[in-house]
Each structure stands twice: as structure tokens, then as C-alpha cells.
């Protein structure tokens, strides 16, 4: 039992790894996750619009993109993109692996987000688009002002879930090789664990992940519940008294 506690919950080692975990690891994990999510959201909505498009030259490539990136293991895609781009000489961010990690996670996330956006947009009653079009709004304006905002609201919990997934997936970026100051939570825990032959630093990293992900999960559940039960409409009909209405009544 003592061995168990020592292997996983050695307070001394945990205290030792904590400054790096919070100062370097947490920061990098959040930078990776938030930047990748920003890419995933922006690109995801574009792919979603292509997915629902009736033009096959928009529709098919989007479909293939989504199927591919959702079908492959994350680590494989990170390797392919993160090593492939620099290998092909596409190195707009220099040789550091970090930006390619962000791009990989962002592109993978975009495939999942696109499907979420698509289902959200398609859950909006067709009458909304028709009403907007009937008022003379062009298709893109109607989508941007009327349909997409409602669709996003319906899938906001699912999008938040996806963010949680991206936070966890940042732990795979280390395969691209990170400089000391670029290491995220997992890599920092793993490095020290290997150095000292004890898993407590990794457990400490795990706890930091949980502090981010568990509250978010509960937030998602709460949101989901609120969306599902909806607000109770207060229905009060008052007699139409003003101008036209009263004139009309006399007719």
C-alpha cells in the first residue's frame, strides 16, 4: 500500500513538478488548445457550409475531408501534417514543431466541428430561411444573420465538448518534438516521471487536466439541460386595440 502511494502520489515529487506544470505546461496546453479550437471553429463553419451546399464541387471535397480526418487516429494525422508540411518545405512558421501541432489539431478539430455545425444548421426549421429570403435577404446574409446563429446555439454544448477533446489531444503534440519551453502538461509530467522512475509527476499532470475538463463537462451538461427544457413561454394575448386593429373591427 505504501508502495502504491509512493508510486502515484509522492507529495515531494508532485510539489517538485508543480511549478513547471503550471508555469509552462498549463500555459502551453491552453495556448495549443485555444489556438487549435479557433482554427477548428473558423474552418469548421466553412466546411459545414460546403457540406450543406447543393454544389457537388463544394459538397464532395468537404465530405471527403470530414470522413478522412474523423476516420484517422489523431496521432497519425498529427504526424502526417506536422511532419509532412515542413518536409514538403511548407515552413511559414520556421522549424519549430509547435505551430504545426496547432495546425494539425485545428484541422482535425475542424472536421468534427463541421459535422456539429452541419447538424446544428440543419436542425433549424426551413421556414426560418424562407422567411429571411422572402424579406429579400440574399442566401449568405440569411444564413449568417438568421440560420447559423440559431444553429450554433443549439450545438453549443457539443462544441464545448469538442474543445474538451482538443484539450486532451494536445497531449499528442509531443510526438512532433517540442523544445523545453514548448512542452505541454503531459510532456512535462512524462519527462520527470521517466527521469525519477516514479509516476507521481504524471498523476500531477492528470490532475491539472481534470481541473480543466471536469468543470467544463458539468458546464456542458448544465447547458444541455437548459437547452432541452427550454424557457417557459409566458403567453398573454391582449386585445388588438390600437390604430388599425380597432378600425378593422368596425369593418
Amino acid at each position, binding site marked *: 500500500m505504501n508502495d502504491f502511494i509512493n508510486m502515484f502520489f509522492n507529495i515531494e515529487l508532485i510539489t517538485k513538478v508543480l511549478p513547471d506544470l503550471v508555469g509552462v505546461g498549463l500555459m502551453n496546453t491552453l495556448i495549443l488548445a485555444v489556438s487549435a479550437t479557433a482554427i477548428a471553429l473558423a474552418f469548421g463553419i466553412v466546411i459545414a457550409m460546403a457540406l450543406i451546399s447543393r454544389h457537388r464541387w463544394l459538397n464532395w471535397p468537404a465530405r471527403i475531408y470530414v470522413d478522412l480526418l474523423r476516420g484517422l487516429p489523431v496521432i497519425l494525422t498529427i504526424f502526417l501534417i506536422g511532419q509532412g508540411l515542413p518536409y514538403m518545405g511548407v515552413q511559414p512558421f520556421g522549424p519549430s514543431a509547435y505551430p504545426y501541432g496547432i495546425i494539425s489539431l485545428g484541422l482535425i478539430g475542424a472536421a468534427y466541428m463541421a459535422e456539429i455545425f452541419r447538424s446544428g444548421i440543419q436542425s433549424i426549421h426551413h421556414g426560418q430561411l424562407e422567411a429571411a429570403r422572402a424579406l429579400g435577404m440574399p442566401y449568405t446574409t440569411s444564413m449568417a444573420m438568421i440560420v447559423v446563429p440559431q444553429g450554433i446555439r443549439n450545438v453549443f454544448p457539443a462544441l464545448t465538448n469538442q474543445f474538451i477533446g482538443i484539450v486532451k489531444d494536445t497531449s499528442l503534440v509531443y510526438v512532433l518534438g517540442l523544445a523545453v519551453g514548448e512542452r505541454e502538461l503531459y510532456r512535462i509530467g512524462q519527462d520527470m516521471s521517466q527521469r525519477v522512475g516514479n509516476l507521481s509527476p504524471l498523476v500531477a499532470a492528470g490532475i491539472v487536466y481534470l481541473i480543466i475538463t471536469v468543470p467544463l463537462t458539468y458546464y456542458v451538461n448544465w447547458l444541455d439541460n437548459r437547452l432541452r427544457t427550454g424557457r417557459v413561454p409566458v*403567453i398573454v394575448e391582449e386585445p388588438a386595440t390600437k390604430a388599425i386593429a380597432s378600425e378593422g373591427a368596425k*369593418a
Partner: protein
Amino acid sequence: MTTTTTFGVRVEGLHKSFGQNEVLKGIDLKIEPGEVVCIIGPSGSGKSTLLRSMNLLEVPTSGSIYIGDREITAGGADINELRSHVGMVFQSFNLFPHMTVERNITVSLERVKGLSSAKAKDVAAARLSEVGLSSKASSRPFNLSGGQQQRVAIARALAMEPGIMLFDEVTSALDPELVKGVLNIMIDLAKRGMTMVVVTHEMGFARQVADRVVFMDRGVIVEQGPPDELFISPRSERLRSFLSEVL
């Protein structure tokens, strides 16, 4: 409620098919500016499809439609510009639930007519007051009754200053006690000279307000004329049996 220009409508040889299903089988219809035409007929006869063709929510398979003197079915017609002059009100209201009542009205004024936010709000306030809902400007649609929502939908369409209004069974989704408030607004609109095409099951309304009643069945216009003629002495057997069912 000022109507700037009212438009007539001319429908010529209109056919519309959904796949193999031919829903409109050659419709000819001429509506004068300021005329109120009610379209009646059994379910599935193509009333909504005809109405929705008039602002190209349905694209005709063949035939032509003129709004005013412009052929909207001609290639290259500016559909959005056209629609901004053709008001439409739906059975299911279709208010934008993520926007306040006021914003429901101002969004198209700003985005389509290019009005400033302040000017759009003025127009919205004026239209809401005409339908007796000034106090609801900052409410959300789901906090309104069906009758109130439909009055907002009418105000929203009228705010664009259309030259013609299309109504598709706008009272069918309402509780009976809320129908009158909506019909009264439509009656007033008719008196002010708006061109109106009204698909309705409200025979009382058709009788009282329509200049002309058009009876459709199975994709064709079977009979049309002034309401008194049509309701009191229907010529066709189909209209007789339809009226005996609905009256």
C-alpha cells in the same frame, strides 16, 4: 399605413412539378393593383405552391409570372430586389426566435433596404404601433401568443413597404379566439388599397373582404369570380361539394 406603389400580378401558363408529381397544371391568373384575391380549395390542390411561386420560393417548371410589369421568371431577374417588394406571411409565423420583436423588423430594413439603425427602429416602432404591439418591441417571439406573433410577422412584412402582400393560411395555426385580431389587420390593409393574395380556409373572411375568389382543385383553377357569385351559385360540381364540406 402608406402603400407607395401597389403591383398587379400576371400568371401565364404556370406549371410546377415536384419530381414526377405535377402540382400546378397550367395556371392563368391576372390580379389588378389593389385587388384582394382569396384562393380556396382542398388540401394538396396547389394553393401554397401557386402563392410561393409569386416570390419564387418555388421556381416554376414552365410559364411566366409578372409582378407589376416585371417578369420575375425571366432569367437574370434580381430575385432579392423583387422579394423586398413582395411581402409574405406564413402559417407558422417564422419569426426569428433569437431576436427581439423590434430586431425581427429592423434586420431586413438594415440589411436589404440599407436603412440606418435609427431609421429602421423608427419604422419598426410605427409598424408595431399599427398592429397594437408597441409594448412588445423588446420581447422575444416565444414570449408572445400565436396571434401576437402573427401580427408581428405582418408588421415585419409591411415594414419593407411591399407593393403586394401574400398570405398563406395565416390564421390556421391560431386558437380561434386569436384569429380575429389578425383578420382585422388584414381587413384594414385591404381597405387601404394593398394588393393581397390570400390563401385561406376562412370563408367568412373571403366573403367579406375578397374582390374575387379563386377556387383551385388538383392543380388547376376550376372557377373564379366575386365571392357572392361563387359562394351562392357555384357553377362546378367540384366547388359545390367543396363548399358543402367547409361551410
